[in-house]
């Protein structure tokens, strides 16, 4: 009797996307566990790594969110020339390969960096970046842009009428509008960044100053590369998933509403915009903090840029193709899952964040190896994995927009028999172009910088730009590598900008 009355899109695209995500996260873990010889549990050192991982991720994520709030608020309240460009540029650190960003950070905060030069110039003791604070600094540098972006979207999603209403009631905008919005947006932003920091290892190790700064992901690396202890690797990957599930459960208890909007170019007219100086101070501070290391990356790269070996350009082209492929795939998956909706989709939307890149790569290798030569499918697998890893971000941008279209126009479309692909083509796609463009740009840029899966699969002919950059470093050619890093940075930003822009064009 109870026929489900509304089925506007078919079941299978969302199911296929969900299946792919599950295959690449849980499936790869299972493949690793399957091959494992189970003889050891977790060691004392593993538990120390777990503790360190959680503490640094908590502090990094907390600090990123807290610092992002005033900056996002300032950006939401102020309109100035170049604001849009600044928002795009502020996103850059998030898109950088780790080693590039770390060397950029060191050029500012390191022993011979600008900050210490200034300090010693003024007669102070130099400070060391290495240690727990260095790890947190780097993670904030990477993730502050993401936090700003997500929280800014929350701010811009507050309808203008509400501000008008608050103004007429002479009510506190903070208590009435901004605090409830933050309660909805900040916890989920915290969760995303917490999970990103949870699976980081190169940052923690390089800047952590020693084995105290060991994360679970490094323990996984060691288990896979040196000990070939697949069982321990799988166990540690399970720990990461468990931490993810716990964090997600806590956050979802705190906030069930996800108030994400789409637009970013809109400055809502407001009546509470006093104290412009403070806003501009926040914007300037964030800009200096985020863009200074970035300009050091540019400066370091310029000398090597003009005599880069030609193979770098071939690698760059390959990377761009992979990036475009994984961006399209990622957006298609996000759209399919968003159209499907529901709780399972939100779970699938965070699962890739908790996946260990190394386990995903190793598991994919184990799945693929019996059938084809890994190097033959290196670029395809890289595309699939990168699309999946970028999915949480894409889904966060696309899902609320799709939900809004469905609630606004779903019944009308159903009554007109406008369902299936026609509904997607005629109504959904045109109406979610903006978040789709943003998601595509983000996925493309993240894929550009990826060095996870490709190292395990690539032969000579599948070299991507980050891999080529590492190979240059491995051959002592640090200046060339810095040049390649600059190319990588420029291409990532360009891809992001083009996609983001494409979503806005005459919409």
């Amino acid at each position, binding site marked *: 009797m109870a026929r489900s009355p509304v089925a506007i899109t078919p079941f299978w695209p969302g199911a296929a996307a969900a299946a792919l995500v599950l295959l690449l996260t849980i499936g790869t873990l299972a493949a690793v566990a399957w091959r494992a010889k189970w003889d050891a549990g977790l060691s004392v*050192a593993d538990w*120390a790594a777990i503790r360190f991982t959680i503490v640094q991720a908590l502090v990094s994520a907390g600090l990123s969110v807290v610092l992002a709030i005033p900056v996002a608020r300032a950006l939401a309240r102020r309109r100035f020339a170049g604001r849009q460009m600044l928002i795009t540029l502020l996103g850059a650190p998030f898109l950088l390969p780790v*080693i590039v960003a*770390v*060397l950029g950070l*060191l050029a500012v905060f*390191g*022993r*011979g960096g600008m900050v210490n030069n200034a300090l010693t110039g003024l007669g102070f003791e130099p400070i*060391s970046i*290495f240690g727990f604070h260095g790890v947190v600094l780097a993670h904030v540098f990477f993730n502050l842009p993401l936090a700003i972006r997500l929280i800014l979207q929350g701010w811009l999603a507050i309808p203008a009428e509400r501000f008008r209403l608050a103004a007429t009631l002479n009510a506190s905008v903070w208590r009435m509008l901004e605090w409830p919005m933050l309660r909805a947006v900040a916890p989920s932003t915290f969760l995303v960044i917490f999970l990103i920091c949870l699976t980081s290892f*190169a940052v923690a*190790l*390089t*800047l*952590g*100053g*020693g*084995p*105290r700064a*060991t994360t679970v992901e*490094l323990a996984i*690396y*060691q288990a*896979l*590369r*040196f000990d*070939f202890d697949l069982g321990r690797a799988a166990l540690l990957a399970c720990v990461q998933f468990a931490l993810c599930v716990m964090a997600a459960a806590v956050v979802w208890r705190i906030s069930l509403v996800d108030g994400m909007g789409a637009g970013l170019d809109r400055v809502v007219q407001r009546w509470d915009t006093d104290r412009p100086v403070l806003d501009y101070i926040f914007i300037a501070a964030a800009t200096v903090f985020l863009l200074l290391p970035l300009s050091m990356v540019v400066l370091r790269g310029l000398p090597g840029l003009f005599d880069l*070996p030609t193979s770098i350009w*071939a690698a760059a082209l*390959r990377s761009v*193709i992979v990036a475009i492929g994984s961006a399209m795939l990622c957006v298609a998956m996000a759209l399919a899952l968003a159209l499907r909706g529901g709780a399972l989709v939100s779970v699938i939307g965070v699962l890739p964040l908790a996946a260990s890149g190394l386990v995903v790569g*190793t598991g994919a*290798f*184990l799945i693929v*190896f019996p059938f084809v*030569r890994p*190097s*033959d*499918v290196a*670029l*395809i697998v890289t595309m699939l994995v990168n699309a999946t890893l970028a999915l949480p971000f894409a889904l966060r941008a696309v899902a609320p927009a799709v939900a809004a279209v469905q609630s606004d126009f779903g019944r009308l479309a159903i009554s007109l028999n406008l369902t299936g692909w026609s509904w997607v083509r005629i109504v959904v796609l045109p109406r979610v172009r903006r978040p789709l463009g943003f998601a595509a740009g983000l996925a493309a840029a993240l894929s550009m910088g990826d060095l996870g899966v490709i*190292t*395990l699969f*690539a*032969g*000579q*002919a*599948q070299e991507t730009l980050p*891999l080529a950059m*590492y*190979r*240059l*470093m*491995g*051959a*002592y*050619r*640090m200046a060339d*590598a810095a040049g390649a890093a600059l190319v990588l940075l420029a291409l990532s930003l360009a891809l992001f900008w083009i996609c983001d822009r494409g979503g806005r064009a005459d919409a």
Partner: protein
Amino acid sequence: MKTPTYLPAVAGLALCATGALAETPVLQVMTYDSFVSEWGPGPSVEAAFEETCACDLQFVGTGDGAALLARLQLEGPRTDADIVLGLDTNLTAAARETGLFAPHGVEVDLSLPIAWTDPEFLPFDWGYFAFVGNEGDAAPTSLRALAESDVQVVIQDPRSSTPGLGLLMWVKAAYGDEADAVWADLADNIVTVTPGWSEAYGMFLDGEADAVLSYTTSPAYHLIAEDDASKVAWRFDEGHYMQVEVAGKLAATDQPELADQFLAFMVSDAFQSIIPTTNWMYPAVTPAEGLPEGFETLMTPEKSLLLSPEDAAAKRDAALDEWRAALSQ
């Protein structure tokens, strides 16, 4: 020009194409990443061997030496590789344990400072680990002296990098049961620990540390390729731990003769003369024309240290715990 294969369809076509050319035997050599890179020995070695073998030599590059062993273990007996090239003596015990390797059967006079008797793994190059610093800076003369100084160095993590593991074995070989005390003294000299060699070396060149754990041959790169004599390797009284890089033949190879031919080629002048200025290591057999100009300037240790593969494997876990405990204080 390499043919990039972006799509399975293209890959499929490529497979058909190689099927048609199947008369040329293919020798697959699995090695670490920097060996196959444009600037590594790979391209020259490939050209030189293919001149003599009437075969297609294919390199499969994967991460560093440790990743290489992991990759081999992932693939297991079903691997397509015929030769594995690039393991070092810290890994050969584990490699031997896989049971995948066959005796190399090569008789050759190696120019190693130590005797070599391994029946399965044949060296192709070697070097000494050393701290590399800047010319003119005060250089410590021993690990102990370094530990007592306030010189700042950057090292690699022994859990993710072969030089890092080399230093661990260096301290163990030099100090045995006192190794933990040495590490405790070294702790305040270590700026940071990086996941790999590249990060550490890059940080040293950027001035983040006075010295970096690398090889005695590293200054040769700066001297020969960049005409820069400002980098020097520090000589330590305890002696220097060696890294010997080896290759082995897989028992399951479908090209046993070709594999033997390659191993013989590997210790010949044609291969060995490529090594110094591409891999920046000492060749396992000094070529007839000697070492390239510039290598004579390199620091040579008074004493060579090397644990046997079995010894190294047996001591590794305890040494790691010592290391971690000392540096986590």
